[in-house]
């Protein structure tokens, strides 16, 4: 599992590559939260297009980041085009509270 976390036009952009499960989610959570806190940014964009696997640990991770964002009065968006990830996201009900976009640009436009 590899993630890049960077400031991108006043948003914290997190790009995932690899498999997001219980094993990898803990280190990912720490990296995101530290950068979110350090940069003092409100909005988060999670780019899940590079994921080759995600189970419900990914849902827990997204829910947790959503809560942090709401506390800071920020907005969280997801970028995804992967049908497997989409299936789990739909099942979890997360799509009722978080919007999904096909590209980073379209996510930024809608923040």
């Amino acid at each position, binding site marked *: 599992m590899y993630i890049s976390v960077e400031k991108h036009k006043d948003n914290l952009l997190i790009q995932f590559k690899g*498999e997001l*499960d*219980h*094993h990898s*989610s803990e280190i990912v*959570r720490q990296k995101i939260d530290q950068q979110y806190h350090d940069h003092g940014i409100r909005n988060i964009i999670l780019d899940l297009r590079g994921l080759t*696997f995600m*189970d*419900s*640990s990914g*849902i*827990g*991770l997204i*829910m*947790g980041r959503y809560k942090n964002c709401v506390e800071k009065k920020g907005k969280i968006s997801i970028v995804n085009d992967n*049908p*497997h990830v989409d299936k*789990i996201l739909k*099942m*979890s009900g997360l799509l009722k509270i978080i919007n999904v976009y096909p590209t980073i640009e379209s996510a930024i436009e809608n923040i």
Partner: protein
Amino acid sequence: MERNYMKLEFLSKSSNESFARVVVAAFASQLDPTLEELSDIKTAVSEAVTNAIIHGYEYGEGIIIVEAKIIDNEIEILVEDKGMGIADIKQAMEPFYTSKPNLERSGMGFTVMETFMDSLEIESKKGEGTKVRMRKKFNSLSSKE
């Protein structure tokens, strides 16, 4: 009737989650599944193994057993631990219920297994362990018959 069987035993380390789901997916691939079916199986196995690690062996490492049986175009997967067992299976199966909210668990594990597989059975005894049995029929092979 086509039959096959495999058994895998490993230590309840989170680094083995990916190992377990890949092995089961590789075994299932002889049924010529679609990518979606393979992905469903990998996800369901990952959920069951994660449960065994986080809940079954919460207080120390133990052995997780994964068995898979192929009968015609159906796979039956058993994930077993000899850990602490589930006190209330009905409650554990409720969507979004988690006994570990501090770990940011979504409480979706059993719901994912139920949704992605055709059937799910759970047997558990407090202090003795848990068995999760899941079945899935593969459409890709049955459609050729």
